[in-house]
């Protein structure tokens, strides 16, 4: 059977199983095993568990639970509420101020974590309830966090950029630097949207209230004197200490990236113990339990999706698709568009790590031959893969949101993230028009690239 036919079958079977409501992890694993049985040598079935174990047993990947722990310690203790209380007190006069604060919080956390779901979880566990409490519609709040969380792989450090750098034989330092301004561009776009959307939701809330309807929390007045506001400031200290501590450990050369994850978790626990007296087992149990539940769910999906992509790779499904595109000998920009569309389609099913491993060896040489700077392309591809994280069926950040705020209906989450997908497309277009957004900083810091 041709790779195209098997590939189509694989896609259809996956979609069917997923939309049947089967848990994503088991659906991915089940489809993979079934296709292994029918289309691969019998011995493959004996390697399933070792494959999954080897994929998961990497400290880089397993830093995700530790990053989630760090986020949960702040988000699920009074530290989170205090932090957001202070931010709100200072920023409530700015339309969408709290939303902007959340986008920035995601960006800051992204600078410490290499993965997007971890970023999403860390900020979302406190950020979503806080925004909803102050009137933000559930979909809007979920969208901000889901999209903000994707910055985890665009701003350094980033697991996927590390893989891309190795596959593309590009400088990791250059790639990390190239991600910074596009990351800030997305922060700016997301913030601008937050302001616009806030104004609309605020106006609608006002109209409802004036029309005799219920009074949204948007309309709650906050009158604090400057002295009162100043007294709130020390409450951001735990977060600032945590941030500084982790950044110094990571960028000061004290800790390796994975050690930083453990260090951040411990630092966060020590802070809530010393400042809020949360050290007893009954104080910590809820934080640890939610961390474990969420990371188990996530790691199961990641582990099984790696099994899924093993089968996909063996059957050469994505490789054939990439080869087919490359074989058409398209003109420069059509080739780029076709490849990015392929990445979007693969993003329906695969997490970014798998997309890079499978397609990079095939798509990179022709892109290079067509004259594209692969560092620039690495950034563009990362943004396109970020979209995959927030659109179904396999959108890791959406699953995180469903876990953090299970009561928000899927429909609301999806409508909430769509505008952000649009903004990411806009960012990609801007990067095509002005490649300097990505390559200016690495060129300035490391000198122009030698070929």
């Amino acid at each position, binding site marked *: 059977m041709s790779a195209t036919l098997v590939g189509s079958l694989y896609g259809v079977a996956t979609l069917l199983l997923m939309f049947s*409501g089967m*848990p*994503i992890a088991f659906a991915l694993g089940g489809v993979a095993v079934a296709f292994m049985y029918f289309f691969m040598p019998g011995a493959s079935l004996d390697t*399933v568990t070792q494959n999954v174990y080897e994929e998961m047993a990497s400290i880089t990947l397993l830093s995700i639970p*530790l990053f989630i722990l760090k986020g949960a310690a702040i988000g699920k203790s009074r530290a989170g509420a205090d932090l957001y209380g202070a931010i709100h007190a200072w920023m409530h006069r700015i339309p969408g101020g709290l939303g902007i604060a959340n986008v920035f919080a995601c960006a800051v956390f992204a600078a410490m974590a290499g993965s997007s779901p971890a970023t999403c979880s860390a900020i979302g566990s406190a950020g979503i309830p806080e925004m909803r409490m102050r009137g933000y519609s559930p979909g809007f709040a979920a969208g901000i966090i889901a999209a903000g969380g994707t910055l985890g792989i665009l701003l350094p450090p980033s697991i996927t950029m590390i893989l891309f750098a190795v596959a593309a034989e590009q400088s990791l330092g250059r790639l990390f630097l190239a991600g910074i301004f596009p990351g800030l561009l997305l922060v700016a776009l997301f913030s601008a949207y937050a302001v616009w959307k806030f104004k609309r939701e605020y106006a609608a809330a006002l109209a409802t209230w004036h029309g005799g309807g219920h009074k949204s929390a948007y309309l709650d007045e906050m009158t604090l004197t400057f002295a009162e506001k100043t007294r709130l400031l020390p409450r951001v200290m735990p977060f600032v200490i945590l941030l500084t501590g982790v950044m110094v450990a990571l960028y000061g050369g004290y*800790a390796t990236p994975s*050690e930083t994850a*453990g260090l951040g978790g411990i630092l966060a626990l020590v802070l809530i113990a010393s400042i809020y007296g949360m050290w007893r087992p009954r104080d910590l149990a809820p934080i640890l339990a939610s961390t474990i539940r969420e990371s188990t769910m996530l790691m199961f999906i990641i582990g099984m999706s790696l099994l899924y992509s093993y089968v996909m790779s063996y059957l050469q499904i994505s490789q054939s698709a990439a080869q087919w595109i490359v074989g058409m000998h398209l003109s420069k920009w059509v080739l780029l568009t076709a490849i990015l569309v392929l990445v979007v389609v693969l993003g329906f099913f695969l997490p970014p790590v798998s997309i890079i491993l499978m397609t990079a060896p095939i798509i990179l040489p022709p892109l290079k031959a067509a004259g594209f700077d692969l560092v620039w392309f690495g950034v563009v591809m990362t943004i396109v893969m970020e979209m995959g994280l927030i659109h179904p069926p396999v959108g890791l950040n959406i699953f995180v949101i469903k876990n953090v705020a299970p009561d928000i209906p899927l429909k609301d989450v999806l409508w909430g993230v769509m505008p952000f997908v649009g903004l990411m497309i806009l960012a990609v277009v801007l990067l095509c028009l002005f490649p300097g957004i990505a390559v200016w900083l690495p060129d300035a810091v490391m000198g122009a690239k030698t070929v």
Partner: protein
Amino acid sequence: MSHAAPPEAALDPTGPGLLARTARLMAWINKAVMGLSMLAIVAAALILTGSVVLRYFLKIPTDWQDEAAVFLLVGLTFMCGAAVQAGRGHIGIQALAGLLPAGVNRLRLLVCDAASGGFCAFFSWKSWTLFHEALADGQTTSSSWGPPLWIPYGLMATGMTLLSLQIVLQVAAALAAWRRP
């Protein structure tokens, strides 16, 4: 993608009968595993933190910490699979749940659970084979620490077995609820 109402209504842990007794046992195991996993995740974080202190300040080699953390984290991930399943925490896309009539929906959920159970049972089986190979051949990791591989494989196999049992229990409960009017 909302959490559908779990068909665990029949799983009244206070009630009489084999199903209820099994449910009680399973709930107890899940609770114990969860408690141990909480210690494990803190231990993993402490080990990595200690690693920084040992190497940077005391110049002591740190060649086992990463692996110890990996074992703890992989182990707890698999071991907690059942506890998460008990709370229907393995997320799926429940888009159809709202569209189907209640009876059909129950059938759909049952089929999904059965398929999930089948996959997990297969995975458990192959994990035990892997565990057995590692134990029989004395396999270790290839690092200088070189801890035996049967430890993580054993945790993976045990965890997946518990997860399979949890799903079987949920399927049994759904079938029991079905028989009752």
